[in-house]
Every structure is written in C-alpha cells, then in structure tokens.
C-alpha cells in the first residue's frame, strides 16, 4: 500500500527497473526447484489506482452495484463516526501531532513529489541511455565488421585478374622478343647485300679513276721533245698569223 502511495504521487515515474529488481528477485528466489522458465511479463507502468491517496479503487468498484457512487464515502463516514463516538479511537495529544505530521508530509509530497520523481527518472534514463548506446555501438560495429569481411571476400575473388595481367605481360614480352629477332634477321641480310653493292660501286670508281690517271700519264709521256718543239713552233706561227689578221682587220 505504501508503494501505491509513493507511486501515485510521483505519477511520472517510468522506470520500474530498480523496484522490479527487488520484487521479481524475491519472487524468483522463492521458486527454487520448479522454476518456470517463461519470461516474466514486464511490470506495470503505474501502480494500482487509488482515490485520495490511500483507498484502492477496487473498493469503490466493489460497492458501486449495491450502493452507487456515494456508497464507500458513507461507509467511511459511518466507520469514523462509530470509532469516535464509541471512543474506540480516543482523541488526545497524539491525534493533534498526527494531524500536523501527516499534513506536513502530504503537503511536502504533493509539492515536491513530481520534481523528485523527474530527477530520479532522469538518473535512470541516463543509465539506460548509456547502456543503450554501448549496445548500439556494439551492434553497428559488428555489422560493419561483417560488411568488411564480405568486402574482403569479394576482393579476394579478383585475384585471377592479377595472374592474367602477369601472363599477359609475359606473352607480350615474348612476342616483342620474337619480332625483334625477325627484324634483326632482315636488317642483317639487307646490310650484307648493301655492303656488297657498295663494295662494287667503290671498285668501279677506283678502276675508273685509275684508268683515267693512267691514260693521262701515258699521253703526256708520249709527247717527245721533238714533237714538243714542232708544236711550239706551229703555235708561234699561228699566233703571228692571227696577229697579222687582227692588225689587218683593225686597220680596215
């Protein structure tokens, strides 16, 4: 009943965790042998409904069919009157102190109850939020790790391309080498044939020059001194005649 009072006045209480721990803990430790492993349903968010802070709603519902709305109030009034009139409850100094204490308590709870409850809720919320954050981080980390592993597997599948590239390189190198050999053979043959032709040209030129030199030398050598004197005399005579002719022409 006390728990109902506290729960009602602090009616914004949401986290029933700590309370739940105590209650359910106790109930679980009672069933030691025949444990039902069924999951325990979550605790209710609010406590049972009460009227005026202490009287459970069930009494009102119970008496409603027979006595209507005012039934329990009449019952309460009657009981109090009975207790007072028969002096089953004696009014003395304790009564006054009880009235003062209870009024202060009720005033305090009504005034500060909600804010204290909110504060306690905030504390609990923070704890829950931290735990939730840790859990979320863990889950996202795990999913990320799974993603990464799958990606790595996909990457590994591409290894065939590497070896294809290597084989291609090898084939290209071989082909290049082969072509170079072909070219080399052709070029060598061409060079040799061209060398022969050049050699021939050179020989021919040398022969020509030699022949020319020889003919010149022999011709010059064949001019004897006798012939030389005759040719010089003839040249002089020719020149004289030419000079005479030119003079004759000039005077005319």
């Amino acid at each position, binding site marked *: 009943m006390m728990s109902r009072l506290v729960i009602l006045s602090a009616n914004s209480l*949401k*986290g029933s*965790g700590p309370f739940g*721990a105590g209650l*359910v*803990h106790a109930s*679980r430790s009672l069933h030691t042998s025949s444990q039902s492993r069924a*999951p*325990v349903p*979550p605790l209710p968010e609010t406590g049972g409904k009460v009227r005026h802070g202490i009287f459970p709603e069930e009494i009102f519902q119970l008496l409603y069919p027979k006595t209507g709305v005012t039934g329990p109030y009449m019952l309460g009034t009657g009981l109090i009157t009975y207790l007072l009139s028969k002096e089953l409850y004696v009014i003395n100094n304790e009564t006054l102190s009880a009235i003062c204490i209870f009024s202060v308590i009720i005033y305090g709870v009504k005034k500060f109850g909600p804010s204290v409850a909110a504060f306690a809720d905030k504390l609990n919320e923070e704890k*829950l939020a931290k*735990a*939730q954050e840790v*859990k979320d981080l*863990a*889950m996202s980390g*795990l*999913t990320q*790790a*799974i993603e990464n*592993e*799958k990606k*790595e*597997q*996909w*990457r*590994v599948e*591409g*290894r*065939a*391309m*590497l*070896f294809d*590239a*290597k*084989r*291609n*390189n*090898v084939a*290209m*190198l*071989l*082909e*290049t*080498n*082969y*072509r*170079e*050999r*072909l*070219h080399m*053979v*052709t*070029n060598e*043959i061409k060079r*040799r*044939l061209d060398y*022969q*032709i050049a050699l*021939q040209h050179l020989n021919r030129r040398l022969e020509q020059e030699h022949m020319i030199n020889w003919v010149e030398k022999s011709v010059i050598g064949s001019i004897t001194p006798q012939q030389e004197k005759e040719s010089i005399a003839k040249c002089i005579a020719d020149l004289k005649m030419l000079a005479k002719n030119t003079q004759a022409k000039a005077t005319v």
Partner: protein
Amino acid sequence: MAARRVALKAIDWVAFAERVPPNQRSNFNALKTRSDAISAKLTSLPETPAPIDWSYYRTAVAKPGMVDEFEKKFKGLKIPEPIDTQTSVINAQEAEATKSAMAYIEESKVRIAEYEKELLKFKNMVPFDQMTLEDYYEAFPETKLDKVKYPYWPHKPIADL
C-alpha cells in the same frame, strides 16, 4: 606468328583497381605502369619486317649466285620462338594464391559466423528498460559480481570501481 596474339586476355584495369585493397595500391600502380610500358613497346614494333626486294638485288649485285643463295637461305630460315619459362611459374603462383585465398575465405567465414552470433545475441536481448539485474548479468556475464571471491560489498576489488 598470329597465334601468339590471341593469348593476350583483355584486362579491365578499372574493375581490377576496384578490387585492390588500399594497402596494396602501390604494388598495383607499379604493375600497371610496367604492363603499359610493355604493351607500348609491343605496339611500336610492326608485326612483320619490310620484305626484301630480291629482284633489285639480283640486278645490282655482280656476284652471281650470292643473291640467290641469300634468298634461298632466308626463305628457308625459321626463327625460333622464345621459350616461355615464366608461365608455369605464374601458374604455380596462381594455384598457391588460390589455396591461401580459400583458407582466408574460410577464416573470414568463421569470423562472420562469430559476429553474426554476437549480433543475434544483441538483437534478442531484453530491452534495457524491461530488464532485471539478473537479466543484465545473464546478458553481460563479465559484469556479474563474484560474491564468493569477494564476500563483502562492493564485491569487487576497490581498484575496479
């Protein structure tokens, strides 16, 4: 001669680049530059050399029979193709790589199974606001207080607070 050309497989460098993990990117770049250099060299060489004009040489060279002899020898010449020593090595490397890749994939699968188990555990956990302390200790066994080893509160060494 033309049969060798077919051996070249078309490589999709873009797709290849996607699959390279970041820590091997420099190796990949080196390979690519090498391959490009080799293929450039290959394309720069014509496939067959220019044919020799035998009739011109026959008329030009005076030595009889020399040109004919050359021609005969040239036509009969068969240039040996270079021997391929590396392809078998590469094939062996590929087989080995396949083996290690399979092993890696197996390990990776084991890891994925572990991760998925943990993920399942997290997913199936009771939500925190409906959890009791007992549920909490079940879900995260490392937080359970050892009341036997440390019977007095706070049930764990002070340094761990």
